[in-house]
């Protein structure tokens, strides 16, 4: 699974930097590079755009994995250019932005919006597969998640808006409940769809989510 990001509109980025004349740019070599939102070429394109807007870009780098602890070292290695800047514009997911913020005293600004955690279903097509509800119900629904795949997260069958097997919200998107029905039928487990599914325990999603485990 990777973190899916999208570039913010340039006007929004420029507006967020209105108090900064000198900017240091950071991209990410992992998810944001795969998504063409914060790899080397996008960082260089952003540099050109900011310079065209009258900003001074004091330097840039693409950290292999911006959310990693090595970000601290990367910042230290480039301390001179970073120091000269009024702020850092981070072209990675929100995790990378927070990591940079943790290890730097400069104000950080995101250049990307973090959309979801997903996977590449076919080349160039990324989709959400899990919304991390903390109470996995895949066993009841033939491995298809109605929390993620149904626009309303319905647990007891489709709403009245399913048309031609597609979702009312997005006619390109299959109705999760038709998929669940077809797969349970193939598995010979259609009776299971008739069971009442009680309300979900949303306290499992109380934020901020944290957990303690014994380190390896």
């Amino acid at each position, binding site marked *: 699974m990777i973190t899916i990001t999208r570039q913010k509109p340039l006007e929004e980025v420029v507006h967020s930097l209105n108090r900064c004349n000198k900017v240091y740019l950071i991209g990410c070599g992992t998810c944001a590079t795969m998504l063409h939102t914060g790899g080397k070429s996008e960082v260089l394109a952003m540099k050109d755009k900011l310079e065209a807007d009258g900003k001074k870009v004091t330097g840039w780098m693409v950290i292999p994995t911006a959310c990693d602890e090595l970000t601290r070292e990367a910042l230290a290695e480039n301390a001179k250019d970073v120091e000269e800047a009024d702020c850092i514009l981070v072209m990675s997911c929100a995790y990378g932005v927070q990591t940079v913020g943790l290890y730097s005293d400069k104000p950080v600004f995101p250049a990307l919006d973090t959309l979801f955690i997903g996977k590449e279903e076919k080349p160039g097509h990324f989709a959400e597969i899990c919304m991390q509800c903390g109470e996995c119900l895949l066993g009841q629904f033939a491995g298809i998640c109605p929390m993620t795949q149904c626009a309303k997260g319905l*647990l007891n069958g489709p709403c009245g808006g399913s048309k031609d097997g597609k979702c009312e919200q997005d006619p390109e998107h299959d109705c999760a409940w038709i998929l669940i029905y077809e797969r349970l039928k193939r598995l010979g487990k259609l009776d299971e769809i008739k069971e009442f599914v009680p309300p979900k325990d949303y306290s499992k999603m109380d934020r901020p989510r944290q957990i303690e485990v014994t380190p390896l």
Partner: protein
Amino acid sequence: MSLKSLLEAEKSVITAEVGPLKGTDINEIGEVAELLLGRVTAANVTDQQSSVMRLGSLATCHLLKDKGLEPVFQMTCRDRNRLALQSDLLSAHVLGIENVLSLTGDLPSLGDHPQAKPVYDLDSVQLLWVIKRLNEGYDMVGNELQGKTNFFPGAVVNPGADSGAAFELQLIKMEKKIAVGARFFQTQAVFDPDAFAKFMKRVEGFGVPILAGVIPLKSVGMARFMNKNVSGVFVPEELIDKMAKAEDKAATGMDIAANLVKELKDICQGVHLMAIGWEKRVPAILDAAGL
């Protein structure tokens, strides 16, 4: 007699839908209530239909009741979490509202506040289960209530689902709704009584009263729009043709609706008229249907 007692006595009933307007002007609601009084057994009040922000269903139900018209409180799961749904149900009870219709609710993205956070904390089946618990004197986590509710819970079904799987899923969901307490059903709009009769045959053994939905056609465009966009609604070409050829579209649309009312009321336990802006014409449609 109340909706509950008529349906339980297996009598045929007519219900109609009332859609609150956007704003605080309640003159229209009052006029519609007066026109419907004595002509329908009960009036459903929609809950911010199509996710368009409007006057609330609960307050409007109360206004109808004040006018002597029995309300059906439509409650969607779109805008309220389980605390708010249960609290509004208690409020509805103390205001004397007896009928509640449980619905999932349209997606906010299709309405006039697409930026809204969708809730769907419960689904329509779970909401029916919650109503049953409140009727038994408990909230949904098992705390005892000081004074229980006494609701007559209803639900919806879409008899015209377009594929084998979609149709079977409608029946499965309908059975689930009955198992957790639905005592009557109102359907999505029906335009083909023969197809509806086949649906009725399938659900014969379910043992719950069903009211067939009727929407009066206002134009050819409306019919085509529903065929293209509204799940489970199929207006046959023959009716579209009739509308296309009609000089007086409104009269023809009302005439078609009256014929549907006449035919459908004999196939099931009654009809639910969803006039969508034509509420004041409901008495004329019922006149034409001989009711």
